């Protein structure tokens, strides 16, 4: 049984001008212990997918109109409140993109961290002392010095890198099988990014947690993940083992992405991909990438491609590879 199996997920948002059909049939699956990357440009639906898995989409205006999210065999979309609570407490954790926004500014770190630990270990009936010890331990694990002092601090007193480490500590201290990291380093200083990522990667490996790393950086994905999903406009357009994807990108979008990365060998300005991401109010028919695709065919305008198997776990949603 796969750890996480999303099939044909359709999610949209009711906004003033109409209905934004963001996720248009997302397929995503991973096994226990895997470290999977999810790449895509801003606005393609990565965070919406993550939030759907965690069931924290703002329900008006968001609407899930189809599909299923199977986590360890149970559909998250049809779970009852207390089942979801258990999943939150002990199975899935999330690290948000902006650590400043993710921490409540008027409460101490200690309060937030210890509350998180207490509720995730709700079945263990820990004493205050024990919770505190675990909190200190968690901070030590993310290499934060002087853990005792930090517990008393407020987020405003700490730097961005420290805040993200605390978020990581919160995610890992709460016993998770699956960690979803949504662009964990994007809002950090460039000099800190590497540090924090390295730490995250090490911890994930140490605890053998399954992880989804959401990012728009191909470089990160190459270094840290075993398998990659490429997402565009609410659909997964390609998936493959990391190495395979970089050596052999099949989908025209992926190819465009790869080509757009400037190379150190200095071959001049890297070509971009023509056009822009679609308007979710009026998305293109058929394959959502067809307006920008250099290999567009008639069928692309009419039908939506499913994920075609190209061998060795390499799938791509493009009619070029229909057979």
């Amino acid at each position, binding site marked *: 049984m796969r750890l996480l199996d999303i099939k044909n997920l359709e999610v949209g948002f009711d906004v003033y001008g109409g209905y934004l059909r963001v996720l248009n049939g997302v397929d995503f699956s991973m096994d226990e212990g895997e470290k999977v990357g999810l790449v895509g440009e801003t606005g393609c639906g990565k965070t919406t997918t993550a*939030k759907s898995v*965690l069931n*924290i989409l*703002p329900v008006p205006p968001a609407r899930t109109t189809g599909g299923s999210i199977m986590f360890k065999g149970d559909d998250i979309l049809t779970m009852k409140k207390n089942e979801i*609570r*258990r999943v*939150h*407490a002990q199975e*899935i*954790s*999330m690290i*948000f*993109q*902006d650590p*400043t*926004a*993710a*921490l*409540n*500014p*008027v*409460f101490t770190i200690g309060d937030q961290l210890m*509350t*998180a630990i207490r*509720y*995730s270990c*709700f079945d263990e009936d820990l004493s205050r002392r024990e919770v505190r010890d675990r909190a200190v331990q968690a901070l030590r694990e993310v290499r934060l010095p002087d853990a005792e002092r930090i517990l008393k601090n*407020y987020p*405003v*007193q*700490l*730097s*961005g890198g420290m805040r993200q480490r605390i*978020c990581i500590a*919160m995610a890992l201290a*709460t016993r998770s099988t699956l960690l979803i990291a949504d662009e964990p380093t994007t809002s950090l200083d460039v000099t800190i990014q590497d540090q924090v990522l390295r730490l995250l990667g090490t911890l994930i490996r140490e605890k053998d947690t399954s992880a989804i790393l959401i990012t728009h950086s191909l470089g990160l994905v190459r270094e840290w993940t075993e398998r990659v999903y490429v997402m565009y406009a609410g659909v997964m357009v390609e998936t493959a083992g990391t190495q395979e994807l970089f050596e052999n990108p099949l989908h025209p979008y992926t190819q465009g992405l790869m080509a757009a990365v400037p190379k150190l060998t200095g071959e001049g300005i890297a070509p971009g991909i023509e056009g822009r991401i679609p308007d979710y109010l009026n998305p293109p028919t058929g394959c959502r990438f067809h307006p920008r695709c250099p290999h567009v065919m008639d069928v692309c305008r009419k039908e939506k491609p499913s994920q075609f198997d190209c061998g060795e776990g390499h799938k791509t949603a493009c009619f070029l590879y229909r057979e």
Partner: protein
Amino acid sequence: MRILKYILKRVLHSILVLLGLSILVFIIARVVPGDPARMALGPRAPEKVVEKFREDLHLNDPVYVQYYHWIKGAIRGDFGYSILTKRSVTLDIKDFFPATLELMLLTGLIMSVFGILLGIASARNANKWLDNVVRVFSYLGVCTPAYVFAILFLLIFGYVLNILPTIGRLSTWIDYPRTVTGLMTIDSLIAGDFPAFWDALKHLIMPSLALALGPMAQEARITRSSMADNLQRDFIALERTQAIPERKIMSKYLLRISIIPTVSVLGLDFASQLGWAFLVELIFNWPGLSRYGIQVILNKDLNGIIAVIMVIGLMFLVVNVIVDIVVSLLDPRIRLGAERSV
């Protein structure tokens, strides 16, 4: 001890401001034509008496000399002689201040507590009927002057329904409780005199409500939108993924951060109501500082005017300092500021 330093700084600043204010009002007041001495003593007083009166009050001296005399007195607590009541202004203030204090305390309480509660209820039932009612109510409350509410209440509860008294602090057939705090309601509770307490409350509720309704609506609206905003923030989403029960998220984590903007506004709102109290006290014949204030204003009793402005200014200052302290207690970002570079 940071807080102490802060208070000290504010108090010093405000003393300077009040001083400046006194100079300003003094200057404006002395600009007016007319003869205060003649006005005080009436047209039939002999000229010699009026002249002596003028000498005693230094009315013939240049402005700065007059101001000097005033300051000398003010430091000692003597605000001079009131032409209107024909006695010491300080005595007048002592007499009338408790009534206004009681009124403003209840008003402040209603404004803040009920305003915030209403805002919370509104946010919880977002877009349902309660929320819409509160929204309409808040629009109306903000654009209705307090004196309109006062007249309305007087009409409805005082005359038509006849369930609430319309004048003063205590009905004529009730004995005044022994004065401990000067607040009729508290004093009667202390004395264990429940009929008096009840009567005092009945007198207090209409003017208080008239003053409190407008800002209460405003506070509700601010609280509601603050809560609605914060609900979208990432930290709330994170707390949900941590399996913290929704109740706890709402009542603890959402609440504290959402009432900060409301509390910040409370100071200003309270101040503006101190102003409207002048009219409301007049309408209800409430024997408070504000009614005294409007009377001295309308009668051009300069000593009275300046003294009232000073006292009100002081009240405002105290309220502001309290509000600032509460806000900085609630919001560590303000009290800790940039201890570290962010």
